[in-house]
């Protein structure tokens, strides 16, 4: 995708993720170093009035996988997200995005969302990336 060809409002192809599993949360805890028991231990989640939930940063990881399937990892300049809703094992996440603005120096600004299959937004964000130029 070249900077010159991109239009504001362009919707990126949707990234569909497999359902989140309990084992995935264990893998993610070890990989990230986030051993918060809310993601791992039933009794702790229940005592807090919840069920075991996915790490927000796992969903941000999926969101950034979507972003870097649309723009090169090398060209990603900024990524900021807000965590809105909890995500639970069994849910399947989709990453969607849309170009908001073209700025100087070949920079595009875009919005990106991680949603479940019912369209519930879990994480929403903005990213900025440079795109290669035809020139």
């Amino acid at each position, binding site marked *: 995708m070249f900077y010159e060809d991109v239009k504001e409002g362009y919707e990126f192809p949707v990234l569909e*993720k*497999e359902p989140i599993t309990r084992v*995935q949360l264990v*893998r*993610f805890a*070890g*990989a*990230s*170093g*986030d*051993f*918060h028991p*809310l993601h791992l231990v039933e009794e*702790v989640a229940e*005592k*807090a009035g919840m069920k075991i939930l996915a790490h*927000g*940063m*796992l969903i*941000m*990881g*999926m969101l*950034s*996988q979507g*972003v*870097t*399937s649309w723009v*090169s*990892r*090398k060209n*990603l*300049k*900024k*990524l*900021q*997200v*807000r*965590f809105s809703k909890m995500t639970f094992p069994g849910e399947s996440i989709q990453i969607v995005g849309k170009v908001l603005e073209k700025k100087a120096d070949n920079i595009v600004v875009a919005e990106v969302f991680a949603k479940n299959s019912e369209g519930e937004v879990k994480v929403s964000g903005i990213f900025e990336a440079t795109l290669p130029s035809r020139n």
Partner: protein
Amino acid sequence: MANVKDLIGLEFQPYSLAVEKGKIKELALAIGDDNPIYYDLEAAKKEGYDNIPAPPTFLQVIDLWGGLGSVEKVEKLGFKLTRVLHGQQAYEFFGDIVAGDVLSVTSKLVEAEIKPGSTGAMDIVVTENQYRNQQDELVAISRNTLIHRH
């Protein structure tokens, strides 16, 4: 507890950690990101990297394995673990981060406020981390927003 605004300026102990391709692969696998640049050196070099690059959320690995764990950080702030939520996360990248780099991190609480909420008041705190590599180049800045329900 004392007013959360007293936390502004709190500096956490600096830390550093090597960026390792094993941890990169482990994180990519956990996320389910199959981008070959995170697994295969030739694929990474083809994209212009000197070595396997770190995925965008990899700096969390540096923070939690190099610095304060999430549980310890929450305790240092005087918050109750079960009342803390991750509100926002932001990264700004200034250069490549690849396996073999060593990142040194400074971490400071830069914003704190109390906000009313539908179920009671909340503390909102923002911590800013600066990541420098072994050549003392600033490669990334992160901003982490935690919400602590009273």
